[in-house]
């Protein structure tokens, strides 16, 4: 079973191949346009893994939430590749991928994955870790202002991600001892998407290409004319 994975919901673009348990990953430096590097990186990581694209069994992708344009690039790429190769696509939460990267860097479950949603908000997701060392969601993902974020239960959560770094002082003050954190910069990456995608594929969660769709969480992106009149 060979899996291609794509994640570009943040400024970090990465691709990975999971080939029968062996992982290869390529990460693009920040500052390069994702589109310029996506296909060359995919070719490179397939070569690293010695896998031909025709040998792929599925394509996993970070489906968001995250930067809209980046999320859509991963989704459109997964659609194009899954459709062209006639293989299933595997949507993987970009917050789950972030939590998984955090776990690999020492975060202790439960993990609070926080992505920067801009406009004073974060995308938040709560995760536990299973016996195989893979994260799974224990709370609905949400778009929330840091001042309104709630920590479920009464245990200690470990926060990771750009959403934590953007609001660290506020969050520490609000939650005190109940919030531990990975201070280093952690992003959702394709290696995590690949691991989580492999689990999803085993569980039969692959979808046809046309059902490979983004998760935005932020649904209100413009005001209607009627709403603008009310505001004036």
């Amino acid at each position, binding site marked *: 079973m060979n899996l291609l994975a794509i994640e570009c919901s943040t400024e970090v673009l990465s691709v990975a191949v999971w080939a029968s348990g062996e992982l290869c990953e390529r990460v693009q430096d920040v500052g390069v346009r994702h*589109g310029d590097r996506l296909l060359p990186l995919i070719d490179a990581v397939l070569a690293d893994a010695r896998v031909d694209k025709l040998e792929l069994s599925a394509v996993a992708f970070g489906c968001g939430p995250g930067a809209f344009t980046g999320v859509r690039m991963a989704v459109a790429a997964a659609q194009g590749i899954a459709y062209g*190769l006639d293989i299933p696509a595997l949507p993987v939460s970009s917050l789950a991928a972030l939590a998984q990267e955090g776990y690999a860097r020492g975060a202790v479950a439960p993990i609070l994955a926080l992505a920067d949603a801009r406009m004073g908000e974060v995308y938040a997701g709560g995760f536990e870790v299973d016996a195989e060392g893979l994260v799974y969601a224990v709370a609905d993902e949400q778009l929330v202002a840091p001042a309104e974020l709630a920590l479920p239960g009464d245990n200690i959560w470990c926060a990771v991600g750009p959403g934590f770094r953007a609001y660290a002082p506020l969050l520490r003050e609000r939650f005190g001892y109940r919030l531990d954190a990975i201070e280093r910069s952690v992003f959702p990456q394709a290696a995590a998407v690949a691991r989580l995608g492999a689990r999803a594929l085993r569980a039969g969660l692959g979808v046809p290409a046309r059902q490979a769709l983004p998760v935005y969480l932020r649904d209100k992106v413009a005001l209607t004319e009627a709403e603008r009149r009310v505001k004036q």
Partner: protein
Amino acid sequence: MRVLGIETSCDETGVAVYDTELGLRAHALHTQAALHQDYGGVVPELASRDHILRLLPLVDEVLAQARLTRRDLDGVAYTEGPGLIGALLTGATLAKTLAWALAIPALGVHHLEGHLLAPLLEEPAPAFPFLALIVSGGHSLLMDVAGVGRYALLGDTLDDAAGEAFDKTAKLLGLGYPGGPALARLAESGDSASFRFARPLTDRPTLDFSFSGLKTQVLLAVQRNGPERHADIAAGFQAAVVDTLVWKCLRALDESGRERLVVAGGVGANLQLRERLREGTARRGASVHFPRPAFCTDNGAMIALAGALRLAAGEREDASIHAAPRRELASLTPP
């Protein structure tokens, strides 16, 4: 060569298959007009969100129509620009990755080159060289077309595009968004002689257009008259735009000595414009060519066609997924 065409530059998702031997095999379109209606204009983020939902179902639809499978495709053409960057990137990403997976070439096409070549989808197709009038919500261009990629700009709008003037005037008349076609329908019941609006720049040798002043005159007429005069105002407005476009086209034919005129873009579907250009070109012994109304507005067929002509001539591009939201048509080169 069978080429899949993908158009996502604005608020229509268009997909088609063009065969360089057999011509257009299939086309399908999803329009987002209803999605943007409450916003009074296209919301770029909503446009992108809709494109990604519609693309693959439309690809399935055209392949089924054409009785082809994805493996029968020899290339993928997509709109590179101009247009909304997010919307363009959605189509470009799908096109490039699909082509990668199928191990066939993908090629970005200039949206206006698609419009310019759309009359070639019809029979009889006009032969090169010809003049082209592209009139839509975003453009009012007169081009000299010597061949694929051999374009010279003769005239452009200095302010609003002709279609934009139609839509803005429709809004003044309470016809909603996008109201250009509704305005043309209203004009049918009006008297175009009762309101005489200016024909901008027709008294000068330039082939450029200007439509924003016309909008102001319409605004004044709307303010000074009751709704019972709206049909007359619409007719007067349409006559002014059509007169202006016709005069410029005929002048360009006279000056260039070209014998064929092609008209493309959404305003090219306007019946009065078609009628007047037919008369005017016939008097000069020239011919005028229009795509069918469905190919006047944005569509995948014109992108499949333009991409197929370039791909078949051997044009290729690198693997980068990119968009060119503001590229000039005249900057294109032959394949």
